[in-house]
């Protein structure tokens, strides 16, 4: 979902398709195992499901997969992307499950959803750093005293009524 560089030489699970950290470095697996979420126990079953679909994809697209790796891991990155597109397309079987997985992977990267945000910022969480999320004040709260260009940048609609509403 959010591709990243390999964590170590010979990393198979992370395809290494993009520079910088991805969802895995950002904590996607920790997030999926978060007790509050209550889906950690289902992960082996979900992996099985994805691997079955990867096998089917390989068979229908003439890909030969090395038997030493789980089928989804064995797919090339472009094939993983195409398969993800299929699994997530409206109407696809079990799509709701895959959408949830996609949502949590993205939430780990975009929101560090397994960490308190102020702590994540302090730890330089790779996703929040990547998107340039601003840092809070010393008390852990966000405030923006400078927030406006401070001038009128358009004319209001001529029929605006008292209070600023449309007519």
């Amino acid at each position, binding site marked *: 979902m959010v591709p990243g560089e390999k964590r170590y030489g010979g990393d198979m699970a992370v395809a290494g398709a993009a520079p910088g950290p991805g969802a895995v470095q950002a904590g996607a697996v920790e997030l999926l195992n978060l007790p509050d979420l209550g889906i950690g126990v289902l992960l082996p079953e979900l992996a099985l499901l994805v691997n079955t679909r990867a096998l089917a994809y390989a068979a229908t697209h003439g890909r030969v997969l090395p038997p030493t790796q789980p089928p989804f891991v064995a797919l090339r990155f472009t094939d993983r992307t195409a398969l993800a*597109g299929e699994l997530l397309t409206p109407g696809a079987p079990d799509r709701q499950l895959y959408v949830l997985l996609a949502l949590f992977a993205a939430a780990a990267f975009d929101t560090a959803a397994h960490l308190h945000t102020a702590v994540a910022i302090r730890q330089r969480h790779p996703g929040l750093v990547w998107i340039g999320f601003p840092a809070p004040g010393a008390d852990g709260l966000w405030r923006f*005293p400078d927030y406006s260009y401070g001038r009128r940048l358009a004319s209001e609609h001529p029929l605006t009524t008292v*209070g600023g509403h449309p007519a």
Partner: protein
Amino acid sequence: MSVTERTDVLVIGSGFGGAIPAYHLAAGGAEVVILERGPHLTAPDFTHDLRLGGYTRIVDLVQGDGITVVAGNCVGGSSVVYFAASLRAPGFVFDRRGSLGHRLWPSTLTRAALDPWYDRVEEALPVAEQSWDQVPYPGGLFAAACDRAGRTCNPVPVAVDLARCTNCNWMLNGCHFDAKRSMLLNYLPAATAHGAEIRPLHEVQTIAPATTPGYRYRVSYTRLDAGDYRLPVGAGAIEAKTVVLAAGALATPVLLQRSAPLLGGVPQAVGRYFSGNGDRVSIADVDEGKVRDLLGLERAPGIPYQGFPIGKPIGSMSYDRLDPATAEFTRFSLQQIYFPGITDLLAQATDAPATSWFGVRKKELRARWPSWLSVLAMTEDDNEGVFGPPPPTGSSTRVATSLCLSTLSYRPTANTLRGWAAADAEARAVLERDGLARVRPWSENAAGSVSAHPLASCRMGDDPATSALDERGELRGHPGLFVTDGSAVPTSLCVNPSLTIAALAERACPGIVESTAEEGVRARYGAPVPR
């Protein structure tokens, strides 16, 4: 463990639709109990935090088939998590005919007829007009782009105490500074000051006829575990002379569907004609250099914009396409808006729908996040949402913290799609001019269309075949059972709906008090605006 209590008035839900009648009835002398499914939190609990288990206690993401809806789940309802844009609906909305070809709103309801009720709500919240120097950077950028494209643009009126507001952009989490004027700060405390009792973590399941003489309805509820809303920890029932149903447009019709066999049937319009208010969000990937060169903006030396996460979420909007002379289904407003990171998933980086919202190019788009600008079009949809048979409890099935599955299905008709296409074209005409930005709507592959403005699932009207409520907000065939939340609003509004929901709830109050008084309760209408 089950006990039956009695009260004059039972209110279900504590958002705009519940809090407003609760206040008027309590202030008028009736005994009022409010049952609310969610927890009762206040400013110190509203933290600046995206960790699951924080804001997810008070916001639900409700997934239907073809649509996902965001809604509040706490005392104060969606007013606690909303973005406080407070707008009156344009006059033409009340004349809408939809694809049915007849007027959808009660003939007694026009903008002029609703204006006095809007006045009251604006005074009570209160609503403030932002001056241009209170409009945050994203709203300023949108205004400048509108101006350069020959459009007008207005600062948005907001229910915010602007002197207290820190422009932190954490409105979805509830306001830590008590600057946002939610129901927690006006109608609800005023109601409790007059003796109304709020019971959080009480989820209503059914409404049935009462067995005690002199009482009209019996409302059954379960109590929910504060740590896991899926777990019931008790149950009970309350009999009341009047019931005000205000569980929100996602829940009100479902409670009535489940109650239908007990009530001897409900109008056929219950659970039909749902509208997502025509919501359509797009993300613009803004070119900082063009912001400087084309618009002449600079917010700090060398920084033209990079202001996406700064401010109040809603700053400015264009009314240009709210022209009553143009055809139905082509009118809309276009509003600058910010959504927190949890929705970043939906931004599209390419034009290949199946894979546009994830992968390598999407990651590149994320690296430019401070330079994003998002806009919300509120269009005229076709009320095409329909609820399936109700789930065993509540209004949807909770699968994880804050994630719910609903039986709502939404298949946009050609009319709705025409409105969205017109809105997309306008967003591009304003923001893509001379390469200022690249604009794409949120992906529909992940979640269908997305709305924070559920409406019309139990709507009022003059035609019994297509409206569940009469023009006073009473459920047809069920005296003393009133619906006052977003579900009563007949159509999409082309602006954010809260002020209209609130004004309609205010308007319904004299009738609810009267109906209650007829049952022998010494209640009078006429309390002043709460303060």
